């Protein structure tokens, strides 16, 4: 829950511009990007996600190192990914 996980923005949902489909370690889910109104991400850009909300934009290098950190954590990240895979907010 406390982990910030990096996701790549794939696309925005057509009729809900505050929702975006992202790819997190191969898991594709919809998250809310409403907290990034000041600097909305574009498809192909990376965001740091907390409990279904993008909290900050990050560059690809930071995304890779955040991912390496999370994969090193092991079970906590597996649990987080499993929870994300179950998430259906749209």
């Amino acid at each position, binding site marked *: 829950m*406390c982990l910030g996980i990096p996701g790549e923005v794939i696309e925005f949902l057509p009729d809900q511009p505050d929702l975006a489909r992202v790819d997190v370690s191969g898991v594709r889910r919809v998250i809310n990007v409403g907290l990034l109104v000041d600097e909305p991400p574009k498809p192909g850009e990376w965001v740091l996600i907390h409990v279904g909300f993008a909290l900050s934009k990050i560059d690809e290098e930071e995304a890779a190192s955040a991912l390496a*950190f999370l994969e090193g954590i092991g079970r906590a990240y597996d649990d987080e990914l499993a*929870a994300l895979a179950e998430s259906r907010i749209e």
Partner: protein
Amino acid sequence: MRFVDEYRDADTAHALAAKIADLCEPGRQYKLMEVCGGHTHTIYKHGLEDYLPEAITLVHGPGCPVCVIPMGRVDDAMHLAAEPDVIMTSFGDMMRVPGSAGSFFDAKAQGTDIRMVYSPLDSLKIARQNPDKRVVFMAIGFETTAPSTAMTVLRAAAEGLENFSVFCNHVTIIPAIKAILDSPDLRLDGFIGPGHVSTVIGCRPYEFIAADYGKPVVVAGFEPLDILQSIYMLMLQLSERRSEVENQYSRVVPWEGNRAALMAIGETMELRPYFEWRGLGFISHSALRMRHEYAAFDAELLFKVPGVRVADPKACQCGEVLKGVLKPWECKVFGTACTPETPIGTCMVSPEGACAAYYNYGRLTRTRVKEASRS
């Protein structure tokens, strides 16, 4: 050793460690607190303490939101979950936290409708799909998760949902740091500031630590090198007799924080006069509750909440661990009666709790690690 085997920048780490050692004044002992549980995790996993000179001690702080929830609030949540037609929803981290009569998992096994969710938005969806039920979201976390709860409440209000509410247990990091600074138990020299909380609140709120208490703060990232770099920045400030707030994690943390997130919190929530923290006791203005404009989404007003204070189990020393007075392994029940499988205290429940992190990774002794890194 893990660090050398797994980390691509081992040479940089050793170079940083040497620079840190050079900054130590002979005969002086340094205590630096890492506030965030994520940092604690990195420190234990990579054995960072073994890279540091003996004069530097890292003290683990209260920044694990699951760990600071007092037993009474868990009991209150269990009471809410047992109300007629209620579906309780919770992050997975919270499911194993023991109250005085068991955890969410125990209650779920006995038939109470408690569901694990990834996001408060999942709770909202459950509410939409179950109009004849009352869906409660067990909201926990620091300023990192509070914006998500706030945005979800705003969404519920916009949709006019009447069967969704929040049991708000959000806490704020600054009063906890202040309580630790004011505590007579511990003399600290500086702070490794939390990373993700700071993406929301920015760096400015830490300025009182530097200005009023004369202690340096460096907001840090989560990689081993980030933490070593931050320790170096703290030690440099101390050696130059400076106390400032610096941002080592500027690639993610903006100095001003996230304006939209702060606005969402401010719109829906306000500070409580006081709140109980496990181990730290009651701290003024240290937690959030729903504003009265959003009373329709406040589970504490919609349901009768017992609000009884429950003392922690006698054997449990989470309080001392959370304040940094005890190291995890110095607790009487660490690794014996209290393990991640059967936790007594909250610090063993969450993967970011200091006890769980140490239990999982802290098996190497200082000497063995030093020998391994030389070979």
